[in-house]
């Protein structure tokens, strides 16, 4: 055993970055970009942690993982114990380690962030989760005592999965109803393989099945079942149906062939595996073609990088603000650039042009930043007369999703916010209908995996209370939650 380093020595060390696949190789491969840490690298990185008395990283984590504790255990080589610490607060660490916007959360608040060298908490979380999985991950056995109560969960995204995980542990019967043929939500249909291998999601779901969670696919609640039926057949219902309604630009030409919503493009490629030979779902041929993607979030990055991997000749991300306002994870932006994606800032499309029904080009309006809007970001405004027209073969619209009305339109009793999301008591996820809980993107609007997971778990706790005392008390009137 080497001597522990002093604080000063630790502060001199460089942040250890993960091994990454070569940009040239990955521009044509759907294999995961990040290759993770070796045991040595994980230890080195963990040793940099200053073990703050009041760790700011923990406060910055939306689910309050005891980050300082797990990092200490990694430094000591006790990976199994580190995993236990993480799992107390995060049921999906292999996923969150890969997709959380750490720079805005734990790493953004780490004291070393000021020196631009925050501890690579995400990398470490991922390392720990992958390590225990490769060692033959043991799921904590569900409590042997069954309560005889049952809960229906609608939607199998991170919110639904987290809620199911907690409730099955408490001995309740849990059935997850999923509209698609495969569970996982955005984790399987949206986020691409090169960022989040589907085997990881499958393993998490298989783990929940082992614990006794039932998954019923091809089950569209509102159509295959009504909400009333699920309420009658269960003691509680959790709604975690996500924000699955793609927004379009509402400019002329949007229905031309060659214009996709990001949801459609990504679903064809990820869920339906259009990138693999032998799969029947087609995707428009982008080989050598010019592709534009509208938007600046993770979805836009995923769409652009997917197009690149399908062989596009030239991929441009068009964003109406500047790089500083882009909501995408910083790592994704860097990866996209390395892979050859071009970024055009302060432009907004005004028209899509076509010939014989096929997209051929577009006109964009140049923008400038004005006063900050409600979100605190400076609002883009058009610069009069500054229009530019150029050619393109494919356009992907990745400007966000609204709440999908399919289920909500069948239950008018469920109170909605003015954004169309479900109104809940934030602390408990309780809705205006006794026995019905909600969480994740259907409450917040498009947000993050960790927030959806956290909401699923808060609801699970509140479901426990409801199952125990059958009292429907709301701390606050279900109130619109800002999207």
């Amino acid at each position, binding site marked *: 055993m080497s001597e522990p380093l002093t604080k000063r020595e630790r502060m001199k060390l460089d942040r250890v970055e993960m091994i990454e696949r070569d940009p040239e190789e990955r521009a044509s491969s759907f294999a995961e970009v990040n290759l993770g840490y070796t045991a040595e690298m994980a230890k080195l990185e963990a040793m940099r942690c200053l073990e703050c008395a009041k760790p700011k990283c923990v406060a910055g984590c939306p689910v309050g993982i005891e980050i300082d504790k797990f990092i200490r255990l990694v430094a000591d080589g006790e990976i199994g114990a580190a995993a236990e610490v993480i799992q107390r607060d995060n049921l999906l660490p292999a996923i969150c380690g890969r997709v959380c916007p750490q720079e805005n959360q734990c790493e953004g608040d780490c004291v070393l962030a000021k020196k631009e060298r925050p501890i690579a908490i995400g990398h470490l979380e991922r390392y720990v989760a992958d390590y225990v999985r490769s060692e033959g991950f043991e799921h904590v056995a569900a409590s042997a005592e069954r309560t005889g109560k049952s809960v229906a969960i609608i939607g199998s995204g991170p919110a639904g999965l987290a809620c199911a995980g907690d409730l099955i542990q408490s001995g309740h019967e849990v059935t997850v109803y999923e*509209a*698609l*043929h495969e569970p996982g939500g955005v984790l399987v*249909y949206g986020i691409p393989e090169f960022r989040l291998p589907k085997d990881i999601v499958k393993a998490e779901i298989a783990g929940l099945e082992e614990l006794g969670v039932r998954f019923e*696919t*091809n*089950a*569209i609640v509102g*159509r*295959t*079942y*009504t909400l009333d039926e699920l309420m009658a057949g269960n003691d509680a219902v959790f709604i975690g149906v996500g924000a*699955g*309604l*793609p927004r*379009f630009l509402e400019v002329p030409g*949007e*229905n031309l*062939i060659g214009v*996709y*919503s990001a*949801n*459609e493009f990504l*679903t*064809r490629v990820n869920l*339906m*595996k259009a990138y693999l030979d*032998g*799969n*029947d*779902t*087609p995707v*428009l*041929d982008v080989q050598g073609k010019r592709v534009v993607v509208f938007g600046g979030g993770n979805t836009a990055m995923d769409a652009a990088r997917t197009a690149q991997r399908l062989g596009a000749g030239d991929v441009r991300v068009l964003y109406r603000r500047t790089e500083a306002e882009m909501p995408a994870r910083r790592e994704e932006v860097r990866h996209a650039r390395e892979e050859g994606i071009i970024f055009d800032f302060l432009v907004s499309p005004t028209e899509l042009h076509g010939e*014989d*029904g096929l997209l051929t080009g577009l006109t964009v309006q140049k923008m400038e930043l004005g006063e900050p809007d409600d979100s605190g970001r400076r609002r883009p405004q058009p610069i009069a007369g500054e229009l530019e027209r150029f050619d393109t073969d494919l356009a992907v619209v990745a400007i966000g999703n609204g709440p*999908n*009305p*399919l289920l909500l339109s069948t239950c008018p009793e469920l109170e909605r916010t003015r954004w169309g999301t479900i109104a809940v008591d934030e602390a408990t996820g309780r809705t205006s209908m006794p026995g019905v809980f909600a969480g994740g993107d259907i409450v917040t609007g498009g947000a993050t995996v960790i927030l959806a997971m956290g909401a699923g778990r808060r609801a699970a706790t509140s479901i426990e209370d409801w199952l125990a005392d059958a009292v429907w008390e709301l701390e606050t009137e279900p109130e619109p939650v800002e999207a």
Partner: protein
Amino acid sequence: MYRIIESNFIAPEVKQFEVEAPRVAEHWQAGQFIILRVDDDGERIPLTVAAADRDSGVITLFVQGIGKTTRLLNRKKSGDFIADVAGPLGKPSEIERYGTAVVVGGGVGTAIAYPVVAALSAAGNRVIAIVGGRSSEYVLLEPELEATGAEVVACTDDGSYGRPGFVTEALKDVISSRDVSIVFAAGPVPMMKAVADVTRPHEIKTIASLNPIMVDGTGMCGGCRVDVGGNTLFACVDGPEFDAHLVDFPLLARRNQAYHDIEQRRLEDFEAECRVEAS
């Protein structure tokens, strides 16, 4: 997995399936469809549910083999399984007591129109079903339609059976001799457009069941978007039935060709494979 209880060809390349799908059968209403995947590598395709029996949990589908997926499906036999069946999707048809209703079905569109005919008849309407096909063997479901109490006018393009000529000619005759309150149309896009063009000057309310390319069928992808009166709507959740006088049919026809070349290649490869298997 969803078991095929029975399957039979009822016309060249058109097969009738009885499939065990109790959850769909339980809630299905006329006008709704399902999305299925034949196998694990398969694409998701929409098919109208022509009938459903709640007691036995069985749904009836009619499938016209026009491309790889529908041909693959049509090779399945009684006792085989279908990987996924999701539904019932879409809004049900608006069935009311209209008075005299005309339902026009072309080709496999007759199967899509069949449940509407049955529901309109059951609701007490006088229903005239005008069904067309290229030639006699393509005229579908005539006895079944008659059994609902509807008056059936069969038409063939080549005159080999029933009334010679297109369904629109028969429709014009009916409109000129009867007081028609509403017209439903299901079939190829050009046929639905032609029906809308016939009824428009008469201001007869006309509903078309649109068939755009779909993926999820839940309103998540927007691939099924159609233009209705200048508004972009999603056929899988806002439809599939829309006011035919407002639908942009040329756009629908064009969008349905989006994958034509890819689909054509897949079909050729599939047929070649089938020939190898058969030899």
